[in-house]
């Protein structure tokens, strides 16, 4: 659409104001803190890149970072796939579809509440439901929460299980795929699967892209799951990076160090996001290009 330059600016003015007034200060403050020894109680002293140096020399930092990476790589694709799959099914004209949609959104409403923590224990404790089911198949009981090698999976599963918001977004996107394209695909002899892959999927790529970025960002910043279920343990095997940041900021009062950690994470997410945006033109189909 044609438009005068200032018109667009006008529309984003609220955001620009918000950016300057609400976002910029905390942002730069935290960046500044990352170069200080700020401990909240006394005024910060400039320490150069000491925090960053310390960071890279800390074992826990690397461990936590490694776990976070694997967590991201496990959960993001799984959650997206699951959300998309369910959204796809719930997009059919089914009876009681409203009920099912609500049911599937349920876990996400529960969020990080007590109930979830307790439930996860029941599911994955040594005497929990999962092991009970496995026992039916003759599998020995597994220490899902006690074994450092498995604990991360249970946390990941929680995240996947709370797939409600990407699901809703996918649903909204699926609704926007013109019916006529499905008709064309039916005439073209495409099976359901093929139609999904070749027509539906490309049509919702803008939103898929969005969900991907969001899940990526959120997975990198995941705090609640491990916090309520494993507390980072056992043996720090679920000690995701945000927990590390949190501990340093609010338990150890090492705000300077914590800020440095945050900015490190910021850069890491930024790199991934940039890569995603670079890949965008190869697979994201926009109806409207600029």
């Amino acid at each position, binding site marked *: 659409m044609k438009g005068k330059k200032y018109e667009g600016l006008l529309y984003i003015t609220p955001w620009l104001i918000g950016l300057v007034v609400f976002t910029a200060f905390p942002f730069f403050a935290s960046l500044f803190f990352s170069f200080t020894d700020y401990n*909240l*109680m*006394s005024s910060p002293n400039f320490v150069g890149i000491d925090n960053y140096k310390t960071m890279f020399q800390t074992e826990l930092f690397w461990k936590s970072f490694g776990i976070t990476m694997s967590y991201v790589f496990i959960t993001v694709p799984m959650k997206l796939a699951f959300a998309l799959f369910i959204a796809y099914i719930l997009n059919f004209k089914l009876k009681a579809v409203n009920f099912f949609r609500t049911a599937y959104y349920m876990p996400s409403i529960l969020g990080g509440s007590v109930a979830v923590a307790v439930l*996860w*224990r029941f599911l*994955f*404790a*040594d*005497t929990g439901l999962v092991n009970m089911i496995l026992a039916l198949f003759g599998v020995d009981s597994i*220490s*899902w*929460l*006690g*074994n*450092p090698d498995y604990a991360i999976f249970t946390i990941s599963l929680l995240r996947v299980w709370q797939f409600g918001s990407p699901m809703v977004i996918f649903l909204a996107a699926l609704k926007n795929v013109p019916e006529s394209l499905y008709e064309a695909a039916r005439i073209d002899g495409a099976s359901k699967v093929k139609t999904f892959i070749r027509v539906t999927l490309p049509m919702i790529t803008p939103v898929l892209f969005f969900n991907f970025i969001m899940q990526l960002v959120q997975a990198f910043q995941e705090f609640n799951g491990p916090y309520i*279920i*494993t*507390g980072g*343990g*056992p*043996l*720090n095997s679920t000690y995701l990076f945000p927990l590390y940041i949190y*501990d340093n900021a*609010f*338990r*150890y*009062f090492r705000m300077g160090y914590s800020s440095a950690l945050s900015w490190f994470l910021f850069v890491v997410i930024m790199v991934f996001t940039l890569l995603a945006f670079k890949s965008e033109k190869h697979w994201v189909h926009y109806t409207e290009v600029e």
Partner: protein
Amino acid sequence: NKGGTDVGGGEGGEVKLRFSWWGGDERHEATLAAIRLFEDKNPGIKIEAEYGGWQGHQEKVTSQMVGNTAPDVLQVNWNWLYIFSKDGNGFYDLSTLTDHINLDNYDPALMDQTTINGKINGIPVGVTGKVFYFNKTAYDAAGASIPTTFDELYKAAELFKTNLGNDYYPMDLDQYAAFLMSMYYLEQKHGKPFINEENVINYSLGELEEGFDFYLDLVDKGVVPSMETRGAAGNVPMDQTPSWIQGKYGATYEWDSAVAKFQAALEGDQELVTGDYLTGIGNNESALAKISMVYSINKNTKYPVESAKLLEFLVSDPEAVEILGTSRGVPANAAAIEVLEGEGVLAGLNYEGNVKVRGFMGNGISPYFEDSQLQNLYRTVMEELGYGKINAAQAAEKLTSEANRMLAELAK
């Protein structure tokens, strides 16, 4: 700036004080009642109560301290004093308010613990310590008597296994308790605190190794469940562990002030009893006791006198003491104890434990002992030890080097 000080400026000469605490239902109700009483007795002073659950409270107080918006009177954790008031200037120096606060009601040793650089940063609300509590029902079922020595505990372990089953243990220790148990052992053997006056680890590597071996031995002998066994239930507070609830774990080494929830958690009518400090390792006594929490006054308060009045009222006014009861544990204030004893409210596990704690307060506790970073270190080391990632010697090494580093940083 709408800090705590400004808010106090009520209209018509009325003084408004903000008072914050965290806690559970019982504490909220009792405190609110006490406040009403205070307001009745002190017309012209309005109290704005700011209270909530434990979760997030520290973040909240931290933000307020950083933002200079803290309430006039605060209930704080003892070790927070050393965070918010490293140099003693973080809170109002109560020594200037002795006209309104009677410090004679406190054990001077306790007052020492709230005094930083000669400035009194708070008054102790209560004392708490680690005490052994035994599940009598479980012990009876195992055919064991409540132990008083470690040998008896070892024996109980055998009886638990033979009479009840392999997943029964006479005691449960989580990571932190496991560390404290090692310290308990070392203290009994060597009679010195873990951290000395110079903020350095007081034990040699060899000594520590011995302490850790002791813990490993407890695991080996089936006295306590292994880290992995415990972990299988998830990161669960000890009182919520099904094994505890069902009486599969026979005892806990717990703060006396927290015993209520342990007892309440027990399924059916299992009975919990207070145990003695276990002996049989060395000639020294060992115990871990500390001030549970303190009341402090905001250093920027506009109304120090009124704040002091409130403080004093809460800890020593007979009616208030009665209302508050043990909602903050057994009080540290001698006058208060007297009142409560008179009323006969002081009974039960908490009080029994507390009596034991006050009987022997250990060899002194460094204010940094419970620092979050150090606590985290203890847990990590014990966990790695328990999971066999490191041996006792490595654990000693790791603990010493890292703890000393942290202590140095903290004391800076």
